């Protein structure tokens, strides 16, 4: 029992405790996570509630920290490649590409045309599985248990089968190499990829029929977690979260890395910056990815897949620095490397998109309820392997 006179709370536990605030009066501090089904991994939100309204939110992360950057400085350039798979473990192909791009800039390697096409095909397939999976998880967060997630994972399985047939592993692909790719596409692989890509719009139509016009989903997401374009730009956000606010920034257009200038695609942008726009942007991006994939599979040139100058072992780039960045499924994934001429990088730094997108979480959640915080977090699209590194 509490002593009389103090602010009596109905209950007190390690994860929920009453706090007093001069401006708000009696508040409740709730620790959501680190083990909570809605936090997409080991992530903790310290939420201070006034009634059910959020007045403060402190993201706490680092539970999955595993010294990735220091490990990268102590292994060879090649040895870091399999570790990049484990950053954002849903998008290992794009992580591989960004890292390979940074090392290629450092070592002066140029991948041949076919390798660039293969990279684009794999990156866009990765975007498809990331976005459809994300929408499934977002629906899970809104309380639509199971159905959309299972549909998304059914399609994801088909793409993962393609990844396994090509690289040997479903998620930890370890496929890109400095100056090209590891294994060449077989005609059978290209055929099955073509079949999958041609069938994908049908799945998207079905997905949209299930979700886009659903009144409950619209009521839960429209106007929730509204982000202004000014804040999005100032906070350094990238990817679909930025584009949902109406800022048309896509590295595939801005940087024109790889062979993206050859492809005909549009960059969808949102109008409101709310959770519904962030959902809609991803659906539209998947449709554009299908366009890119169809063009890439149609125009895939023959030829070598490795730069003849590239060698597998003993890469010692000249002293210097390089930053390689690509438009990953979650935003700008970049690798910054400093070489001192030794087999290991002197500095190995990652710019993780979901970590930087997470920094605006409090601004998005203020004034909303706990249930809304869950779907706002879901719509930001984080993977804790990448946030914590």
């Amino acid at each position, binding site marked *: 029992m509490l002593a009389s006179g103090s602010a009596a709370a109905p209950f007190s536990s390690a994860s929920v405790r009453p706090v007093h605030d001069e401006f708000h009066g009696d508040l409740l501090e709730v620790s959501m996570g680190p083990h909570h089904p809605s936090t997409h991994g080991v992530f903790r939100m310290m939420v201070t509630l006034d009634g059910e309204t959020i007045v403060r939110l402190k993201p706490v992360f680092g539970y999955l920290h595993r010294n990735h950057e220091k490990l990268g400085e102590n292994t060879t350039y090649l040895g870091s490649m399999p570790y990049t798979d484990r950053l954002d473990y849903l998008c290992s192909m794009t992580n591989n590409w960004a890292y390979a791009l940074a090392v290629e800039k450092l070592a002066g390697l140029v991948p041949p045309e076919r390798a660039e096409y293969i990279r684009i095909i794999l990156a866009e397939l990765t975007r498809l599985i990331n976005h459809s999976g994300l929408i499934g998880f977002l629906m899970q967060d809104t309380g639509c248990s199971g159905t959309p997630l299972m549909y998304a994972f059914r399609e994801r399985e088909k793409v993962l089968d393609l990844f396994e047939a090509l690289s040997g*592993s479903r998620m*930890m692909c370890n496929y890109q190499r400095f100056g090209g790719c590891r294994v060449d596409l077989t005609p059978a692989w290209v055929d099955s990829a073509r079949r999958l890509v041609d069938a994908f719009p049908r799945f998207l139509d079905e997905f949209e029929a299930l979700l886009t016009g659903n009144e409950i989903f619209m009521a839960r997401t429209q106007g929730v977690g509204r982000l202004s374009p000014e804040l999005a730009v100032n906070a350094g956000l990238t990817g679909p979260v930025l584009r949902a606010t109406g800022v048309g920034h896509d590295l595939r257009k801005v940087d024109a890395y790889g062979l993206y200038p050859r492809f005909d695609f549009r960059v969808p942008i949102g109008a409101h910056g709310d959770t519904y726009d962030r959902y809609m942007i991803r659906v539209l991006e998947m449709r554009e990815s299908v366009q890119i994939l169809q063009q890439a599979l149609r125009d895939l040139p023959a030829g070598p897949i490795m730069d003849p100058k590239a060698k597998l072992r003993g890469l010692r780039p000249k002293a210097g620095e390089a930053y390689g960045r690509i438009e990953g499924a979650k935003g700008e994934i970049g690798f910054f490397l400093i070489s001192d001429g030794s087999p290991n990088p002197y500095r190995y730094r990652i710019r993780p998109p979901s970590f930087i997108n997470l920094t605006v979480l409090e601004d998005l959640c203020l004034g909303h309820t706990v249930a809304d915080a869950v779907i706002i977090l879901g719509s930001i699209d984080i993977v804790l392997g990448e946030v914590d590194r």
Partner: protein
Amino acid sequence: MLGSGIIKGLAVTAKNLAGSFHDPARYVTQEFPEVQPQLPENSRNFPFLVADDGADPMGTLRCVACQICEKECPPQCIYIEKSKDKKPDAAGKLQLYPAVFAIDTSVCMSCQICVEVCPFDAIKMDQVFAIATTDRFNGLLLNREQLAKSNQYYHSIHPTEATEVDARLAAERKAAEEKARAAAAAKAAAPKPAAPPPPQPPA
């Protein structure tokens, strides 16, 4: 009309439910232990050592204990000790062999870098995934007897790759034999080498 979106969504779920009974594209679940998955040829799991002769795996390991894979392995899960003596390999050349070759599969992350860097095609990726054990230390530390598998097994899991490797090794062996024969012939044909010219005094 309010609610029409929900009804449309319910039609989709009904279609998927009905479709899952006859359309394999809508019902993708496998009854795992009864139905074993058909792994693609490139599929990889933990590494194994290739032995040319399945009847005598320890005598015919392709590995020459050069320790390149040990150095390149990112999580450092390979441990090799070189032999003191030498044994003839498949081409008849005297080579070292690994007296100890151990892989800690609790550390290995199946990244395939050991396979890529091996110049002797001695280590390849396996496809066995049912590897659970009750002993978390010794059960997961595989020694060379457990790692060695025959070339026929390699052919059975990665047929295309194994055929390429066999062709390459055969070509290398043939080239080595021809070179040895040519060297022997040259040695036999050539007269006694002339004495080296006396060293010139520096100018």
